[in-house]
Each structure stands twice: as C-alpha cells, then as structure tokens.
C-alpha cells in the first residue's frame, strides 16, 4: 500500500510572546492509503498541531511532512492552498459551515474553488454526496435549520466532494451526542471502506477510537505508541465506553 502521509521527526514550536512553546517534539509517522487513523491524547498533547501539519495549514519548524509525496516545507503558500483544495478534505469539530450559504452551496464550494467541473457535473456530484450522507431532503436548507448531526454530515459531504485522497477530522464528534456521534463515525467508516479514502481524526473519545484501524497516542508533543484498533481495546487504552477526556 502507498504511503499518503509521511511525517519524519517533525517538531513544531509556537511563540507565545517571547516564550517558545514546543507543541511537537520530533514526531515520526507514516499513514498508508485507506487507513482509518485515530490520533489520541489529552488536551495540549499536540493532536491539533499534528493534524495542522498533515492538513498543510501549517508547516513544521523542523523535520519533514510529506503529503501525497510533497514536502510541505518546500511549498509556497499558494501551493499549500492548492494541495489542500485538491488532496485534502476537512471536517471540523464545530462543523464550520458557511452560515449564509445553503446546504447545497456549502458542499459545492470546494468544487467552485477547483474550477474543474461544469455546473451540471458539480450539481450531480453534490446531490450524489448529499444522498450518501442522507440529506437529500435538505438541499436548500440553511445550516442554522439543521441539527448538529445533520450539519456534520454536510461538513463530511463538503470534505468528500472533491474526492480527496485524505480527509482530516478534528474532534468530529465532540460537539455531538453519543448516538449522533456514532452515526457520524459509522458514515465516515463506510466512506472509508467504499471510497478507499484515508481518514485521520483526532479524538479523546475512546468509543470513537474503537472504530479506528490504528490509534496513535500523543503525550507532551511526543508519539507514545501506535496500536491497531483491536490492540488498543485489548490494551485498555480504548474502552468500549463513552468517556471523554481520559488519557
């Protein structure tokens, strides 16, 4: 299997005033195509920073991050944006839909930015995806008219509409109740299986982790270990219960 993401000894320091805050201290990680990878760890462990590096919204202070074979440190701002647009889909904890656009327009947005498809093709693709996520009946709704779970489905559709190789999800279920969260996760899992799209998501939720093909654990900006989903459950890292905020 091809490696889609390759992180080698990546460090990331943030400047907080005059103080250098190390967020990642030398993380190495390979993600193969088609994985359903969970990044686990407590708050401040560097989960979001690692996702940012992989998602090309940030570049490492040291070390390398390669996404789809491209070293992000060598890319310009524009090229990084291009890479995000064409290769990566994003799912956010608080959904981040454009509130003034309808469901259809939100999903269509990345296609418009790509400028590759005609209007008809775009429409077909958007409606297809909305059907996949079960929102065919809400095409013209505004995000504010939808429930949290429905909004996250719209976000998933938006993340997948460009058929990206990689989808990044930052705490995708944190703002949802457990039943809805599970449904969302099931949807992601299903898309992972049918589309062969690689998913990387951060979470504290052990329940969520149990769905992962593998779980990496971060603490203090360092990679603790990498377990398969089954190993994680076996090791007690992941308990099949719904308890947020555990280490």
């Amino acid at each position, binding site marked *: 299997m091809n490696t889609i993401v390759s992180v080698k000894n990546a460090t990331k320091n943030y400047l907080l005033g005059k103080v250098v805050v190390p967020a990642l201290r030398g993380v190495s990680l390979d993600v193969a195509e088609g994985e359903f990878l969970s990044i686990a760890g407590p*708050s401040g462990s560097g989960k*979001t920073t690692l*996702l*940012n590096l992989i*998602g090309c*919204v*940030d570049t490492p202070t040291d070390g390398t991050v390669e996404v789809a074979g491209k070293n992000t440190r060598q890319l310009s*701002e*524009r090229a990084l*944006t*291009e890479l*995000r*647009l*064409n290769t990566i889909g*994003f799912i*956010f*904890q*608080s959904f*981040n839909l*454009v*509130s*003034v*656009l309808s469901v259809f*327009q939100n999903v*269509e*947005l*990345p296609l*418009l*930015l*790509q*400028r*590759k498809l*005609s*209007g008809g093709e*775009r429409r077909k693709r958007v409606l297809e995806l909305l059907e996949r996520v079960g929102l065919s009946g809400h095409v013209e709704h505004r995000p504010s008219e939808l429930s949290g779970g429905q909004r996250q489905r719209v976000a998933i559709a*938006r993340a997948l509409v*460009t058929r990206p190789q990689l989808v990044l999800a*930052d*705490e995708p279920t*944190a703002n949802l109740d457990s039943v809805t969260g599970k449904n969302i996760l099931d949807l992601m899992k299903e898309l992972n299986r049918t589309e062969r799209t690689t998913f990387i998501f951060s979470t504290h939720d052990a329940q969520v982790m149990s769905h992962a093909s593998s779980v990496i654990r971060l603490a203090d900006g360092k990679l603790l270990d990498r377990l398969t989903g089954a190993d994680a459950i076996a090791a007690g890292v992941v308990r099949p219960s719904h308890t947020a905020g555990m280490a």
Partner: protein
Amino acid sequence: MRQGYLATFGVITRIAFRNLFASRLKTIIVGGIILFGALLVVVGSSFVDSIVAGMRRSIVGSVAGDIQVYSSKSKDPLDVMGSFSLEGADLAPLDDFTKVRKTLESVPGVKSVVPMGVNGAIVPSGNTIDLALAHLRELVRRKIDGKASAADLAAYEAEKGHVRQILSVLQGDMGNAKLLKDEKALADPDADADAEAVARAVSPQFWASFDAKPLDSLEFLENRIAPQATDADMLFLRYVGTDPAMFTKSFDRMKIVDGQNIPEGKRGFLFSKFVYEEQVKLKTARRLDKIRIARDERGERIAKDSELQRFVRENSTQVREIILQLDTPKTNLFRQRLQAKLGSSEPDVAKLLAELFKTTDANFDDRYKFFYTQLAPSLELYRIRIGDILTIKAFTRSGYVQSVNVPVYGTFDFTGLEKSPQAGALNLMDMVSFRDLYGFLTAERSKEISDLKAAMNARDISRDNAEAELFGSRPEPDQAAAAKPTPPAPRTIVAEATPGIRPPTSEGVGGKLAREELVRRVYDPSQLESGSVLNAAVILQDDRKVPETIKAIEEAGKRDGLPLKAISWQEASGFIGQLVVAFQAVLLVLVLIIFLVALVIISNALVMATLQRVQEIGTLRAVGAQRRFILSMLIIEAVVVGVIFGGLGAALGAVVVAALGKVGIPAPNDVSYFFFSGPRLHVTLATANLVKALAIVFVVSGVSSLYPAWLAMRVNPRQAMQSEES
C-alpha cells in the same frame, strides 16, 4: 475554465450578498453613511453650483458682462463690484473706444460691447437751514420789491414758521449736547456765545421784530445760526459711466423703475433703485417700509424680532428729520391729524410723532397706512427727486476741479435682484459726463492746456520738489496738495446735490429739464463712441466660452496694437467673485471631512465584521480558497454596499434637488438675493454631480475596505480549527 471563473465570481458575489444580508446592522450603518454622503454630495454640490450660477447671472447680468476688458497698462486689477471705498482701482484709460469696440467685435462669439468706467462721488446733503433761509430771503425780497402775490405772502409766513421750527430743533439739540458734555466744555466761551445767539433767535421778541427789519434779521440767522446747524448724512454714490442705451440693451435684466432712461445724446444720472430707497429716502419712511416687508413677506413680528424693535425705537426717537421739514401750516396740519389719530391733546408735534411711531404688531398696518396717506404727501420723501439736477464736482485725474450738471432721470434695478445691495450698489451716468469728471484729456483739451502753459511761461514741476519750486519753502500740507500739478490719484470726488428739500414745483420733469441750459447736457453720440473708457463689458453669445474668448480678445488686442487685458466676470467682480471660490472650497472641505469620518466609521465596521468572521474565513482558506478569493469577497461586499446605497443616496439627492428646483429656496435676507439671483434659488441637477457623488462613494467604500480586507487575507487557515478545545 472560463465558466469556472464565472462560477467562482458567482459564488463570491453570492457569499458577499448573503453576508451583507446576514449582518444587516453593519450593512445598514455603513450603507446609511454612504447614502447620506452621496445625498450630501449631490444636494450640496447642486446647491453650490446653483449659487455659483446664480451669482454668475447676477454679476454678469448687472454690470460685469461675461468678460471685462481694460488696459493692460493699468496699475491695479479691475474690480467692478467689490470696492466700496472712495479710491477706485488705478486704471489706465483705453483711449479710443471706437477702435476698442472694433477690435472686440472682430472676436468670434462676442455679442455686444458696453463702454464703462466706475467711480464715486460724495453728495453732502444740503444744510436744511441754509435752504430754508435762502427761500425766506427770496420771499422777503419779493415782499420788499412789492412783487409778492397773496400766495407768496402766505409762503412767507409759512417759511418763517419753518425757520422757527428748525431753530427750536437746533436749540433742543444744543441742550442735549450740553447734557453730554462736561463742565470744561460748558466753560467754552464760544459755546456760551452760540447758545446765546440761538436763544435770541428762538425768542418771540426776535420774531416780533422780524417783519420790521427782515434783512438784518436774516443776516443774523445766516451768519450766527446757520453754521451751527449740523448736516444730515452725506451720501456716497458709486456710479458706472456708460452708454445708457447700450447698457440697457446688453444687460437685459435692467429695467427703469421711476422716471425714464437717460435719453440718447443727453447727459444724465440714473439712481439704482436700491440706493435711492436705502440712502435717499427719508429714513423714517424707509424703516417703516422695512418693517412692513419683514412682516408681510417674511412673516416676522415686531414682538419677536430685535431688528424690527430697533427700527421702531429709532423711528420714535429720530423724528427730527421730519420736524425739520415742517413749516407753520404743515406743523398745524400734522398736529391736528396726529391728535385726532392718537386721541391725544399733546401740542408738541415731535412728541406726537414719537408716539405714532411706537408701533406694535397690532397697530402697525394701520399706522403705516396713516403715515403714507395723511403725513407723507406733505413731506419730501426723497432727498433728491427725479428731475433734480445733480451737480457733481470732482478733482479730476489731471488735477483741476471739474463739475458737471446731470439731471436725475429716474431709477433702475435688475429683475430678480431688486433687493440685492450688491447688484444695486452702482448708479448710472452717461459716459461723456463720466469722462469730464474723471478728467480724461482729449487731444484738443490737451493742446489747449499746453498752449496756455506756453503763454503763461509755465514749466513742469515734479511732485516731490513742488513746494520748494513754487514757494521756496515748506508750506502747509493742504497748500501742497492744492499746488500739485499732477496728483497721483485724486479721485476723491466731491459732489453737490441740488436742493432736495424744497417744496415740489408744479412742473413735471420735462418742464424742469427744459429750463436747463440744454447745450451743456447734449452731446453728439459720436463723442460718446470716440472718447476714452476705463473698461468695457463684453457679452458673449455662448457664456460657456469665456476662457477661449479671453484668449482671443488679448490676441486681437496685440494684433491691432491695443493694450487689452481681458478678465472673466469672476475676476472682475473682485471680492464677490472670490466668494464663489470660497463657497466651493467650503463645500469641498465639508465633503472631505464627512467622507474622512465615513471612511473611519466604515473601515471600523468592516474590521469588526471581519473579526467576527475569522472562523468562516479560516474555513474557506482551509478548504482551499486562495487569499485573492477572500480579498475579492470583501471588496465586492464593500462595493456592493457602496453601489446600492450610494446609488440610492444619489437618487434621493436627485429627488431632493428636483424638489428644491421646483419649489425653490426662499432668499433668507437681502444679501442672498444676489447669490440666488432672485427671490428664490431654484437648484438644478447636473449629471456631473451625480457622477461625482458615485465616484466619491466608490472610492470611499473601496478605500475603507482595504484595511479589513488586508486583515482578512492574513487570517490563517489554522484559525478555522480554533474552537473551544484545541
């Protein structure tokens, strides 16, 4: 790909529009400011443009013409309207007007050329007591000669009463003056002697013996009393010397109000109706007129307006001007009528008049009517009457005193500018009289003078050593002035009016004029054409071609060897012309300030809006929107607001202007008549103002979105991830 661009633009616009709608409050605030700004620019610049156009019509139509031409050799710039001082601008004359006219008329687009010259004269009003004594002496002589008719005898008695009336006013004045002066002044022996003389003149004994030795009594009055009487106000007249027929034809707003125009080939003077009413009319009557106008036309009330209260006060305290006009029969008539009107038994006419003029809003109309129907017919309402001869004396430019008799033919004003002090400041005189007073030397006169000089063995003496040359020693300054052979600018013109305060003769204007020596006042029209002028007004066929024509005129002057300098109406009207520029500058500053404030407010609102949208912008960036997408989005938002609200504001402004144009803004005071070029300003809308408003709005909304757009571009896609937890 092209379709992709369009679709992207579509989505940007859609997001922009949706955002505007979503953040309604911001949009309304920003849009409101833009709307107001556009409205202000349209209405403000239309208003100022209309005032400028109004002033232009006033200035061009009343004296200046579109272009003024004068000699380029002049020391001062020409100012046909602004200067209210005695000293006019030092202008070199244009010697031969025929040539000047020919040259000017050869310039394309010139409709007509009016010769001109502006100058001023002082008219000391005749001393009332001198006039009354002169009249009395005339009657005394007839009586002594035994030629007095019954009417003359009655007039004799009346005039005696008149003189006594004047004397008692004089005594009252002296008493008042005494109260004001300190003891030192009282100790002045002359003052005592004067007071004694007046006391004697008022005494019944003096008048009892008057009939017995009238000539001695008159001499006493003339020598001892008359010098003590103070003159009424001096009158300063500014006049334009011109060809009256040409002037009337070229300035078509001019119309004759009283009397007639100066006939062709005649010397004459026309009063501006404004000057005639404001300065020549009996002050009490003028104040009554002003109160009436304020009440009837502007709806003001004596009780509420301090200026009207002042008029009432002045009318009731300053009855002297009327009293001085009253001889015995008139005094009796006034007493009788005033007592009946006021239901009073007060015998003193001065007190009765004071009481009459203490008007209130309730009785004003009634007393106004009473004054004009019952009292005014016995009064001389104007110091100078139509048909009087004005003798205007002047120190001419070449140094000798010249005097010219000009009959007052009538009064004139300019349609729409009747109440404007600016348009009404200039009186009119025929060009030939003007030249005599200004002292242009014709070739003949110049030769005559040099012949005289040669005959008398006179030599030229420079001004600086004139005293030494002429007197051998340093004389008194006024002697030196008298001795100046070529004074630098002796344009302080003293004029004397013919007696204004005389009972009207039964003769009409024509009869009175016929008595004058016609020879003096008739001239050959060619004389008017060929002589010198100071300046000339040029009226154009197309008033938009002023700058080109100025150029063409100066070129034509060079071609024909004439020292012609041409200036626009605006330059020629001096201070008033500069007001136009001032108005425009004030508006510009106002607009700049408003838009600067708008810029800050709009920019602030947009910055706030941007900060609220950091997550949305971050999301767009994370999802793959380039920075320029974000930039376009924000600029489109700003421009959409600018265009919609700016357009709305401009449209609203156009409606307001149209309404103002239809109804017209009433002139708030007399001065504004000039700026409004009439009683109401009808504001007109120029397309340029709409374009200007939209352009300014466009620039302001564009510029104000720059900083927020820059902020938005710097939003990091990472910020999309920022939520409660990270």
